[in-house]
């Protein structure tokens, strides 16, 4: 299992090495845009153990335990209301921003508990980014300002003006949006189409160089062409980030994800490599869901 994953990983790297791809410096090894010294297998994994969550007194998650491997795309699938969005919002401490939101259990990033008493939610969120279902660029800001917002406003060191432009450009390239907006960076962020807005939100998220990118149904509000572009983007992004994607579209999970977790009524039913989940699942409920018998 590990061997074939490794092989597929290396194939992905060489595929991206082709000169037509307009990315930041073509790496032999996954390399962070800021060029910090990297271990050979970059990326950060997360692990959730027995995670429970409540909205007020109503319990939405009943003990989810799952691991997200570094530099992999993990999909969360399941019928509406099964708790996938709730779970993903627990992963970057957004659930507690909902009135009445409460989380129990352990969630770690590279072994560090993000719910530790001395863990600052703001810092956690700068390491675990999120792209939402409906594109939400900041309405009063230009394209440039949108991408730069995280860099300028989050608590990191002050960034010099020249560096800022360079990082904005890198993020827009990474999101596959640079060519379309390079000569109108000062246009309002809201003037883009839906698919472009979503890619802008992705650029904004990766500009702060998080370790993990969470995506809550990122393409469900978009047309099929834009959806395809987002899926291609996810395949590229996974070289640099660990991706967790919530999707109600099973075909999308099959196209995009290395591993898939199937959730039902706030519980994790089955988790495993995507191929297995879709062709030979262990649990009968999984089989019924992926063959469309319900959901």
């Amino acid at each position, binding site marked *: 299992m590990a061997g074939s994953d490794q092989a597929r990983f290396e194939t992905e790297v060489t595929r991206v090495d082709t000169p037509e791809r307009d990315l930041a410096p073509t790496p032999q090894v996954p390399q962070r845009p800021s060029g910090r010294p990297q271990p050979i297998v970059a990326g950060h994994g997360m692990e959730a153990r027995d995670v429970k969550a409540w909205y007020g007194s109503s319990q939405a998650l009943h003990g989810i335990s799952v691991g997200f491997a570094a530099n992999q795309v993990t999909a969360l699938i399941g019928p509406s209301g099964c708790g996938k969005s709730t779970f993903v919002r627990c992963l*970057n401490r*957004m659930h507690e*921003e909902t*009135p009445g939101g409460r989380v129990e259990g352990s969630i770690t990033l590279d072994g560090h508990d993000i719910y530790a008493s001395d863990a600052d939610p*703001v*810092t*956690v*969120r*700068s*390491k675990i*980014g*999120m792209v*939402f279902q*409906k594109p*939400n*660029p*900041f*309405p*009063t*800001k230009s394209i440039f300002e949108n991408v730069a*917002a*995280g860099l300028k*406003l*989050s*608590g990191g060191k002050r960034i010099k003006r020249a560096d800022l432009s360079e990082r904005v450009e890198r993020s827009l390239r990474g999101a596959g949006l640079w060519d379309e907006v390079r000569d109108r960076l000062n246009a309002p962020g*809201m003037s883009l189409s839906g698919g472009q807005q979503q890619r802008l*939100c992705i650029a*904004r*998220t990766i500009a*702060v160089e*998080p370790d993990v990118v969470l995506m809550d149904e990122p393409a469900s509000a978009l047309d099929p062409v834009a959806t395809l572009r987002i899926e291609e983007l996810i395949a590229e992004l996974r070289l640099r980030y660990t991706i967790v994607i919530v999707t109600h579209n099973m075909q999308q999970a099959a196209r995009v994800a290395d591993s898939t977790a199937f959730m039902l009524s706030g519980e994790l039913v089955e988790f495993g490599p995507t191929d297995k989940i879709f062709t030979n699942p262990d649990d009968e409920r999984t089989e019924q869901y992926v063959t469309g018998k319900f959901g």
Partner: protein
Amino acid sequence: MSTTAPEFSLRATGRVRRRQLVNRASLLAASLAALVAVAVLGLLIGSVIAKAASAINLDFITKDPATFGMTGGGIANALVGTGILILIAMVIAVPIGVFAGIYTSEFAKPAVSSTVRLVLDVLNGVPSIIIGIFIFGLLVVGHKQSGWSGGIALAIIMLPIIARSTQEVLALVPGTVKEAGLALGISRWRTFLAVVLPAAFGGIITATLLGVARVAGETAPLLFTSSIAANTVTTDPSQALPSIPVTIFTYSESPSPDQHAQAWAAALVLIVFVLLISIVARVFAARARRRATGR
């Protein structure tokens, strides 16, 4: 098979016809009522213009009142006085009102927030003469009339308008915008300042304009606090300041027909001012609403 269809007519008869007539009559009545409402404003402005025509000229707005017994002169002192009173009111009411609106909208618990909103709504409904007499008892009795006390009374009238409008325009900014900021690892306060507030800014300007329009013509509080004023342009708020509404009142009580005409002219100046601000504010409000919600 016989194909003769039974005879019938598509015209309305009996009960249906009666209902049709009632429908038409109601429509007519409603249109007439709307026309009357619009006509009232038209008549009002029309009669003010007609009665003020003889006294309105450039001198009227640039010269001080004529000395006792003479004709001519203007309301320059009242214009300046009203301007200063409104300025004092704005300096007090705008910061407090905006912050109160921000507090109830963003940072207060729902119970506290709805209590504050109720209090503000009640304050909005307090008759201005009561506010006048309250400030009179507090600041004027035992001392003397002053521009400050007049300005404070106007500020109390302005405050709930600005606070409620600020709170309402902040509520218009979609929650997803705030979430986007938080998910980037930006702290709550900075998210609010840099992302939410700019979106609501136009609405706050509109709220201020509406507050000014309301307060520009308030007479009762000024009768108590700033009515015995000089006949020349004064800018010292520690003295009672002349104002347009009080001038209208005093002139209309005087025996001189020249001053009656001047009262009408002052009324015209006031109504033009209020109308202009109201129209500008409403036009701005639509634009501000679009900006807040991101179109």
